[in-house]
């Protein structure tokens, strides 16, 4: 049938073919369009509506408009929201660059030819398998206290004696953070690794012939070529940190919803939270866009 249509289309203007193609595209998109309406757009609409109103009746979710009351409540009356929110913002701002640096370094390390490559690749991916989930949460010691493994590596006693309490505290805090960040950078490492594989070997060969050192090659070739993946990873990392199960804000919103049953406030909270994540991603994209290498292959 499509043969006939395209044969007929040849006689007509290009517009006809375009329209037909457009129609075909929409046929492909039907499942997703249904999905996004039912499982995404409508819930979002409800959530926005909830954040500006009070629930009158649960049957059919009848609501009454109250304006910004819920937002006022979470900012001025809820004693937990603002500190938790700031904590998450602080963590994200600190963890994202750390995660980028470490996962890039690790990716470069395991991209080399070496003994035990498969082992290392698996090792660095294990935290992803272990869980974005509850397991990780418990292992990180962020759940209820008592039955959790303490975080990562400790500063050796000898060094802590030498440095004194305050400095050791800082170092220990840094180490803890690193551990948490590393355990969450499995996917980023894989993406970087794939990006590194994608860089043409001839660039390095040419540089080597011209006498460039590895250090120079990293700054002049690897880093510029990998900028698109850095950008993608930054966005991915911000989103991953924000939606992570170990995130206290997510926990709090969940509690607000299903323990305290203050759905309207929870909706307002999640919107403040989400808009911030969006702004952060937007800022990252805007800041980095100037530096991103564009191969020009894209249409």
């Amino acid at each position, binding site marked *: 049938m499509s043969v006939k249509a395209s044969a007929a289309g040849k006689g007509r203007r290009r517009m006809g073919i375009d329209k037909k193609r457009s129609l075909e595209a929409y046929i492909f998109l039907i*499942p997703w369009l249904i*999905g996004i309406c039912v499982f995404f757009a409508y819930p979002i609409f409800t959530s926005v509506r909830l954040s500006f109103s009070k629930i009158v009746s649960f049957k059919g979710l009848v609501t009454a408009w109250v304006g910004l009351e819920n937002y006022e409540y979470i900012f001025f009356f809820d004693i937990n929201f603002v500190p938790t929110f700031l904590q998450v913002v602080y963590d994200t701002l600190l963890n994202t660059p750390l995660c980028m640096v470490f996962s890039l370094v690790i990716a470069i390390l395991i991209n080399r030819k070496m003994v035990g490559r498969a082992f290392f690749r698996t090792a*660095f991916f294990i935290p992803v398998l272990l869980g974005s989930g*509850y397991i990780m949460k418990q292992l990180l010691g962020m759940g209820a206290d008592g039955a959790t493994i303490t975080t990562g590596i400790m500063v050796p006693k000898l060094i802590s004696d030498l440095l004194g309490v305050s400095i050791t505290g800082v170092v220990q805090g840094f180490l803890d953070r690193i551990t948490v960040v590393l355990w969450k950078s499995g996917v980023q490492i894989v993406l970087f690794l794939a990006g590194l594989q994608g860089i043409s070997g001839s660039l390095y060969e040419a540089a080597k012939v011209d006498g460039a050192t590895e250090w120079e090659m990293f700054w002049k070739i690897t880093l510029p070529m990998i900028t698109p993946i850095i950008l993608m990873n930054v966005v991915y990392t911000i989103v991953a940190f924000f939606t992570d199960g170990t995130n206290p804000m997510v926990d709090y919103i969940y509690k607000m*919803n299903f323990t305290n049953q203050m759905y309207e406030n929870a909706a307002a909270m999640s919107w403040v939270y989400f808009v911030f994540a969006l702004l952060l991603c937007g800022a990252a994209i805007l800041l980095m866009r100037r530096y991103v290498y564009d191969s020009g292959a894209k249409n």
Partner: protein
Amino acid sequence: MDKALIKKNGRKSKASRFARTFVIRLGFYFLLMALSFIFLYPFITMIVKSLMTDDDLYNITVKWLPSQATWSNYDIAFRRMRFRAYVWNNVIVCGAATVGHALSCSLTGYAFARYKFRLKNALFALVILMMIVPVQVIIFPLYKQYSDWGWLNSFLPLIVPTFFGMGLNGGFFIFLFRQFFMGLPYEMEEAARVDGCGPLRIYARIMLPMAQAPLLVCGVLSLVWHWNDYFEPGVYITAPAYRMLPSVLPNLYALLNQENHTMIQMNELEGIVFNEAMLMAATFLCIIPILIAYLFLQRRFMEGVERSGLTGM
């Protein structure tokens, strides 16, 4: 430059170059070992703890090697968490959801990569939005919706959305497929079209078989993410019969935390001593299936990521 100088340098560095590369090599492996230790730390701890007897747990001098490895923790954990019953729930949900993602996301990604149509950019912005909006933001409306439809306490809310390109990280998978299909040459499609192949057949017979790399990546990631996810199952499923493995764990942890915060719980729960070692065994049991699956797919998965064109944005 003098030939002599070059010669001299060359001769001098032969011994020292070997020493230098050796030291660099050593440092390199040391760094990798250290880093992989950090990555494996929770994993190793989990296994070691799970093999400990009660005495070892008490004994603070035992940190890494249990004085005698015991398998009884696994035995207890296996029965207590009713592993055999719940693992099938996990397999069903994860299997179905993975298939759903592979089908729907490849279809959607293909349309976005290969067609020009009205509102394309606006719709693609929606895909990006899907990636960014955390499910926590819309969890209550979704919950309400599913409860109105009578879908709570079943696997439907976890499986059905994936067949429509939604669900856990659906946006990411659509993006993955779009990136891959964008990198393929147009000639094949055009040739097929000239020969009279319809669009759906082009997709099913030509494009999909070529998309093994992203299909594998999508499959592995979707499987792993669904396996570990406890947020959505925890919200939608409360009936014990439909629980998933990771949502059984919080109950175990809660049981342990309920007691006073000592290392070992001496309370007899159903005649079984409930302690941290058992908990670790239970936790490890949860990830064993996914671990085995990953070990088999590891190499092809990495290749898949490299070839899926994700990085060619």
